[in-house]
């Protein structure tokens, strides 16, 4: 079956511009996560959705970052007024419908490489 997909695979933008990164989770997965991975680092948690709602957005670095999941499947990570420090690989993951536990395997997409010039 299809895995987690992310588009675009690469995005180059200029400082100050707005960008949207899309994630298509595995069908039926109600949990969806966004991470940011900077060079030489592990994934850094940004936000977690259970269904349509953001259950934990404590990892979003500031109010320039926002994510939505209006129908409980596809999610979009939105970054306003991009800065050079936002350059990173943005990863999306999804997991099974089980709730109440963080022990579920997360299935990761290939990531979107964002470069802010």
């Amino acid at each position, binding site marked *: 079956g299809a895995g987690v997909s992310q588009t675009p695979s690469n995005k180059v933008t200029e400082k100050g511009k707005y960008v949207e990164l899309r994630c298509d989770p595995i069908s039926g997965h109600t949990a969806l996560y966004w991470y940011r991975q900077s060079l030489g680092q*592990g994934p850094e948690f940004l936000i977690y959705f259970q269904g349509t709602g953001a259950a934990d957005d404590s990892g979003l670095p500031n109010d320039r970052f926002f994510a939505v999941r209006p129908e409980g499947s596809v999610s979009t990570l939105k970054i306003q007024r991009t800065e050079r420090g936002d350059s990173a690989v943005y990863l999306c993951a999804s997991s099974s419908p089980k709730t109440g536990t963080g*022990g579920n395997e997360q299935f990761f997409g290939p990531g979107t490489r964002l470069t802010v010039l």
Partner: protein
Amino acid sequence: AQSVTQLDSQVPVFEEAPVELRCNYSSSVSVYLFWYVQYPNQGLQLLLKYLSGSTLVKGINGFEAEFNKSQTSFHLRKPSVHISDTAEYFCAGNTGGFKTIFGAGTRLFVKA
């Protein structure tokens, strides 16, 4: 603060030799522990996980890890590595919620 520390950024090893990749965690992330692998140009995939029960966890591709509560460690081991094991390995943990903390990664480089 929650943290997961991978003690080696790079581990070079010869093919067919044993390997251990070290991971220490803070007590606040000790509920569930994971090892993920990222092969070149691929997404992260789960190698193994510890939720409860036996402290020795077996995963895919011959890897295993041991949960050691007194040492707050979750080291990954393989008795004999292959060239194809060359990849980046990430240790991760969470407290039972969904905010998962990842270590910085260990690059395993297997030499012929």
